[in-house]
């Protein structure tokens, strides 16, 4: 593993209630890179994202995940966040009664505390998040509202990117953040991600549509199918998948597997 590897997943197998969903995933993301994961519904994309972020309820059946050269499988989700990991949810959760500003302040300060940084005071914090909010073109009052409550689908997705912008993670995993967005919202989301790009950071973008990748140009595109990455390639792979669908990749992988098992 090279020194600049940020996220390193080796032969990861995971499942739920005795059912194996991830069947040996290998993924290596270097600092400065953007990786895209595509694949048909039910392939295990969200499961992979959840397992990386540390969601409870998944059984790890084998393999490992290293983040910044540290084994993170035994860490709590909040501890992973403190290390600089972020997951933009496919379905952001509505939390009535928890004010967005208050939530974000708690989140930012918990992260700062864990990293040995001083907590932000109220004034500095407000200035900081107002700047970030402008970037995401969110409705004026959303900071005062309950977290995601009454937000449209698009607003919820933008709120995810807003939180990402505010938390400035080293590795961000975006789970279908583009689904259900019109082209303007898509550009806003892409802009949010691109602002974050830097030689020290990396992003893993899960998507169904190659159009997002017109705005967030990936270094590598992977196809996840039936719990395994069956093909990886340059950004042009996304165009090819868009034009021809997944069947040919699946077929190719099937033949390769057949050859392997024969030898």
């Amino acid at each position, binding site marked *: 593993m090279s020194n600049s590897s940020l996220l390193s997943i080796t032969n990861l197998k995971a499942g739920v209630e005795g059912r194996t969903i991830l069947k040996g995933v290998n993924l290596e993301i270097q600092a400065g890179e953007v990786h895209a994961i595509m694949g048909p519904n039910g392939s295990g994309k969200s499961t992979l994202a959840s397992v990386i972020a540390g969601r409870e309820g998944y059984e790890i059946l084998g393999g490992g995940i290293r983040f910044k050269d540290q084994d993170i499988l035994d860490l*709590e*989700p909040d501890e992973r*966040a403190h290390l600089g990991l*972020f997951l933009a949810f496919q379905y952001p*959760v509505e939390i009535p*009664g*928890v004010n967005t500003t208050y939530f974000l302040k708690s*989140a930012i300060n918990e992260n700062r505390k864990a990293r040995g940084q001083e907590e932000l005071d109220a004034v500095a914090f407000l200035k900081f998040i107002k700047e970030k909010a402008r970037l995401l073109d969110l409705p004026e009052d959303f900071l005062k509202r309950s977290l995601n409550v009454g937000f449209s689908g698009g607003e919820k997705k933008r709120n995810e990117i807003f939180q990402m912008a505010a938390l400035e993670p080293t590795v961000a995993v975006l789970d279908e953040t583009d689904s259900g967005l019109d082209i303007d919202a898509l550009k806003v989301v892409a802009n949010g991600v691109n602002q974050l790009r830097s030689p020290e950071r990396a992003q893993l973008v899960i998507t169904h549509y190659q159009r997002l990748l017109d705005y967030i140009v990936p270094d590598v595109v992977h196809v996840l199918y039936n719990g395994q990455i069956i093909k990886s390639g340059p950004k042009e792979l996304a165009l090819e998948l868009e034009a021809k669908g997944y069947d040919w990749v699946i077929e190719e992988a099937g033949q390769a597997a057949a050859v392997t098992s024969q030898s």
Partner: protein
Amino acid sequence: MTTETLPIRPEDPFLEALQSKDPSSEEAQTWLVPIRQAGIAAYSQNGLPTTAHEDWRFTSLANLREVTFDLSLAPSTLSAMELESLPDPLQGKESIRLVLVDGQLDEGLSSRSLLPQGITLMSMKEAIQSHQTSIKAHLGQYTYGNDSPFAALNSALFCDGVYLHLPAGVELEIPIHIMHVTSDSSQGRVSLARNFFHLEQRASATVLETFCGPNKGAYLTSPTLECRVEDQAKLEHIKIQDESPEAFHMACVYASIDREAHFKSHYLSLGGKLSRNHIRTHLNGEGLCCTLNGLYLAQGHQVMDQHMVVDHAKPHTESHEYFNGILDDQSRGVFHGRIHVRQIAQKTDAKQTNKNLLLSEEAIADTKPQLEIYADDVRCTHGATIGQLDEEAIWYLRSRGIPRATARRMLVHAFAGEIIDRIDHPCIRESLDQLIWDQLEKLPHFHTHTSTDPS
């Protein structure tokens, strides 16, 4: 008064004492005699109910029946220092404060210096004599014929309480705080404050009632409040029950609300072994709005019961009931809410929700929202939930770096905050928000869940 139909109930703690009363010779105010007699009669009809009674199915009075109450105990006194040591949500803020010790007004501890001219705020005992004509037409008129045995007990025996009157058009900004204190731990003390708040047309006021007691001893607090809110008047009432762990708190609140008036009544239940708010509102004029809003926080073996009927008696009336319960340990929360829409009450707009959050596996919530509708053009909704903290929400918060314990606290606080946020008076809302934070911190499973918690 006839008593021959009485069933024998030797264990009833009050029946014998009540039946030995003879109001016609003992009551100095002749106009009060029928009120006393009606109370005795109503109580005698059923005595204290058992769980066989539909309205008491989930709330057993067995514990209360075991206590030997002493109705003859004279009210005790409280020193200014003892008073200062009691929690006061309005401490340091402007308020008009009345202190009732064992159900009787203590003038020395009260402070009415900020009370504007024209508003009457005085001891009920005094008002019965000096303001007879104003009170006579109302007292006892709003209790649906003493429809609770505790209202009946109160009517039969009350000595004192608070009388508040605002003439037409008078708006009082400064909150009135009525502190009900049980003085000492004398076993079996009974406090029966009788309160009447009368707001004439367009008047407005905010009244905070707090109830607390000593740290030990079984006592009973059974206040009865009657409110008359006339056309376009506005009353915000906040009641905080924080009795001692062995105490019984059986409160009755009756409100009769007129045209375009606003009645907003909040119930915060924190203490006591067994407590109940018996609430009846009579919606008696078009264009009015009635809101009942409550939060109960129970732990240990506490039982907290909220029992209300909202009676829509005129067309175009609006009512909301929101009650949230947070139940820990082996506590029990009971909610019974009935929206009653009379045939004449077309265009009724009524909404009722009861949500219960169980912080332990052994806590119990019983909820019974009911609609009883005799009009055909109405909008009524009701709903009830019983559940634990939303694991999806906890996961979401944790993924942002918020530790599990903090995430739990945020969610519990949010659940309580839904109720607190409905309090209009900013000063009271802020102090109650703080009070709730402090109370939540004391719940055994505020930070972690009983058994299934993995972290």
